[in-house]
């Protein structure tokens, strides 16, 4: 059995501590419980199994007569607690404890642990000390809702501040609550404007180290607000800040590590840095680096969820942007998805990726089924909505796919540039030049596909010299990947491919003519 790196580190640190060193029975028990907790093996965590398989009792063991397991567990519980309460103590990645009434260990990140698994975010919700009961209730509700919604994002280490004294916002005083493991502070404030009969909901995001305000927004909520009003507020906060290509925060976070050097941070964090930067600004080089990293990581830790999910998600960009880096067959990738689903049966991302793999395998019926499931499971991640919508579009379910993608702009007026790609193709196919131009000119950071689209965009509106410019850039980057019109992305749109080919051919002729002319 291969333990997760951090669990293994934690276990090793505990076993080698002076508290455990001379207690072989405790060592055995801890190892046994870690293993069976990790495997989620509830049968192995029964008193009988523990007694027989770990504490050397024979098959005739009867828990009602022999309290050995309870006694030893209580000893271990105390020992674990004292391990974490030592002076001058460097905390391991996890806090392992044995809750009463159970033999299943609980793994939590210890409060003092400064190593976040991804981006550390502290959520602080407040309203003034003098706030009315109703405003306070709204604030508590927002805090509860956001704690649940934000916890959906696995790339974040969310801390929610529940302390009662954090009610006053003054001179930035509230950010004093932030600690070292919080990379960012998100402060939500609810203030009542009784004169106009509204609530003001504001959000401010701050980068702890540089103290910069990265984001600031304010919404008005009527006093008699509906659930839908609140939902809209959440979406408009979460999409641009956290969800769309991992948002402003993800971008800020991953870029700061890329600048510093990914080799200086622990692997489990690097996995997120690479992944987020690929979602943010996909490039062939970045994808290559990420793939190298993932392959190494999966070799050592085949059960690493982040790495495996990253691998399958990378598959989407690999396909969408025509990189063709991933060698594994679609069947193998689908099998990966099923493995992930074993551990995370209710995860929207896993369902989405499964649907995507079925799409690659040309099984559209299954693909749609999984995409549907993903949509139902997914509450907040608008990037997944986009990926789902694009897969639908490329599958030939154009209207449905476009509708799903268009919806996203209600929440984020300036989404990542590649969100406009399906709409561009949609309008181009219909011959709607104006809309194709508007969408096409907003496409950005999508590697070679961006240049293909810009070439077509400018050609459509008759800006030939700019189209030729873009064609040049396209040729510079496309050498390394496959050629565009023959790729699988547009396989379901033969007419569109013909049109694109015609345009490119036309431009190439122009290029040659202007070349000989000069």
């Amino acid at each position, binding site marked *: 059995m291969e333990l997760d790196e951090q669990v293994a580190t934690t276990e090793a640190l505990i076993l080698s501590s002076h508290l455990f060193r001379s207690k072989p029975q405790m060592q055995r028990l801890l190892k046994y419980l870690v293993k069976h907790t990790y495997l989620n093996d509830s049968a192995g965590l029964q008193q009988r199994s523990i007694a027989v398989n770990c504490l050397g009792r024979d098959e005739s063991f009867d828990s009602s007569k022999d309290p050995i397991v309870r006694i030893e567990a209580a000893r271990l519980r105390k020992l674990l607690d004292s391990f974490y309460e030592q002076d001058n103590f460097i905390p391991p990645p996890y806090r392992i404890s044995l809750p*009463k009434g159970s033999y299943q260990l609980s793994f939590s990140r210890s409060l*003092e642990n400064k190593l976040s698994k991804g981006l550390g975010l502290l959520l602080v919700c407040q309203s*003034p*000390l*003098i*706030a009315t009961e109703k405003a306070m209730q709204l604030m508590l509700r927002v805090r509860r809702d956001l704690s649940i919604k934000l916890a959906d994002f696995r790339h974040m280490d969310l801390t929610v501040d529940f*302390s*009662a*004294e954090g*009610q*006053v*916002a*003054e*001179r*930035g*005083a*509230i*950010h*004093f609550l*932030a*600690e*070292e493991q919080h990379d960012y*502070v998100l402060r939500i*404030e609810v*203030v*009542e*404007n*009784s*004169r*106009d009969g509204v609530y*003001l909901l*504001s959000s*401010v995001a*701050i980068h*702890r*180290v*540089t*103290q*910069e*305000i990265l*984001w*600031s*927004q*304010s919404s008005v909520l009527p006093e008699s607000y509906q659930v839908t009003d609140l939902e809209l507020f959440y979406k408009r906060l979460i999409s641009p800040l956290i969800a769309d290509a991992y948002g402003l925060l993800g971008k800020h976070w991953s870029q700061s590590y890329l600048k510093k050097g990914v080799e200086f941070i622990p692997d489990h964090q690097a996995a997120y840095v690479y992944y987020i930067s690929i979602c943010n600004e996909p490039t062939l080089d970045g994808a290559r680096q990420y793939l190298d990293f993932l392959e190494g990581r999966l070799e050592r830790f085949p059960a690493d969820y982040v790495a495996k999910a990253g691998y399958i998600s990378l598959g989407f960009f690999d396909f969408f942007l025509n990189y063709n880096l991933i060698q594994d067959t679609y069947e193998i990738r689908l099998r990966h998805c099923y493995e992930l689903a074993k551990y995370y049966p209710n995860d929207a991302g896993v369902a989405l990726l499964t649907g995507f793999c079925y799409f690659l395998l040309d099984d559209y019926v299954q693909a749609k089924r999984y995409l549907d499931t993903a949509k139902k499971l997914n509450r907040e991640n608008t990037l997944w909505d986009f990926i789902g919508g694009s897969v639908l579009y490329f599958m030939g379910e154009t209207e449905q796919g476009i509708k799903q993608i268009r919806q996203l702009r209600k929440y984020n*007026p*300036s989404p990542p*540039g590649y969100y406009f790609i399906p709409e561009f193709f949609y309008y181009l196919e219909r011959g709607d030049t*104006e809309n194709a*131009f*508007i969408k096409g*000119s*907003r496409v*950005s*950071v999508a590697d070679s596909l*961006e240049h293909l689209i810009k070439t077509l965009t400018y050609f459509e*509106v*008759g800006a030939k*010299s*700019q189209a030729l*410019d873009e064609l040049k850039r396209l040729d510079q980057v496309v050498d390394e990947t496959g050629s565009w019109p023959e790729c699988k992305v547009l396989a379901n749109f033969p007419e569109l491919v013909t049109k694109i080919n015609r345009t490119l051919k036309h431009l190439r002729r122009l290029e040659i003519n202007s070349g000989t002319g000069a």
Partner: protein
Amino acid sequence: MTLSSYELTKEIDYLFASHFFCNKPQMRRLLSYLVRHCEDDSEVAFDQRAIAIECLGRSDDFDPAENPVVRIEIGRLRRILNRFYEEEVSRSIRISIPLGQYRPVIEEQFIDSDRGYLPELAANDAKPECLSLLVQFATQGEESAALYLLRHQMRIGLTIDIGKIHGVRLLVALPNEEGKVGDSIDFVMRVVVSATGNGFQVSSSILQGDAEQVLFEHSEALAVDYDHQVIGRLLHHWVSDYFDPQVGQLWSLWLELRRGSDSGENIPLHAMFQYHQFQAQANKQNFEKAMFTVADAVKRHPGDRLLGFALADLYYREMIHGFDVSQEPLRDGIRHVREALRFDPGNASLHTLLASMTFFSKEYDIARMELEAIKDCDDTGYSFSFQRAVLQCLMGEWQAGIKRIALIVDQFGRFPAIYPALEYIYVLLVNDQSAIDRCREKVRQHHCESVVHQCLHFMEFSRFKSDIAMVAVDKEAFSARVRQHLEQ
């Protein structure tokens, strides 16, 4: 105890921010628990068991006779508090835990001045190419719900508005590990709200770093039933007046601050320095320097939003002023603005620049579509409003454009060199004999003859619907007339 809980909360926040507490969550929990209960009549909350269970995470079977954790932890907290107040002598409140009891004592202390308004500064030179601003808010007099609301509206409005300005780094007084605030702060903006007999008074003042000397001040009275749009307008005005890249008053001071540190080694800083130098004095010599350094910096830092925007703006200015510096300013400019937009797609100012540049290159359909894409953006800043109005004029809507420009120029009392040129063309277009000579004088006085020529070159007569009855319908004839008049 007569202290307001508001004051006390502030003090606790300050304590928690200090290096004594900032890495000790357990100590913070303990202190806030004790302070919260310190007005309780009973001793229930100060029972060792209660503290252990409610605050230190012990279970119900906690026995103080066996486990000394509460005594140990309170002892630790007592020592930390004592050390804190030994260092921080100028606090207005002092919290202590006398020996032999767990109930804290909170005393008010008399201090003689405003000292400690700015927390102590630690060295940190992040992003010198930006203007770093710390915004502080305060209430004068009694706190009330109405004042809180007003302060909140101002705070959020200001951070949103300043966030739209390129090159201003907005900071909060967030302490570092030692509990100190970074000193990369160039200016402090202090906003004070207070209640008056018939409404409110709001004022903003700008101070340099931690000096107490006030550099600029604005003050405004608000009626009790003020409209929140009034605040919106007020904040737009403050933000433009202080920070707008073209007319903001703080940039010349920023140039002074950076002059010494500008060794040329920090490329973005050097570039932004030259850029603002040009903004302060828009002549060809400064333009050449700015163009050269900014273009070079963009090459070294591709994708940098701040530099990207500066370069886009410079290309636009080159076209408007007719500086003959770049080989092909229009082609390179459009290419660059598009590149800058890749990394900053939602930036309305960049879209306006692109619309203007494509208009200059006579790609009228594209210009129109670009404008369409940003029509819903509220134009708040001075420069942004101005640019859009200029394009509006050149596209034929002279009356609306000039009116808009006159309005903002009037509001701020300052204008860029392009304004007299536009005004002059406008009075000639509508043949306003009474103003023609005065406007020509203004053009000469501000040396913007070349801008007049550029505008004449770019403006479109026939393609767009005009909102004035023009005396001239033929562009060539009109241009000739203007040139002739200008040379008289």
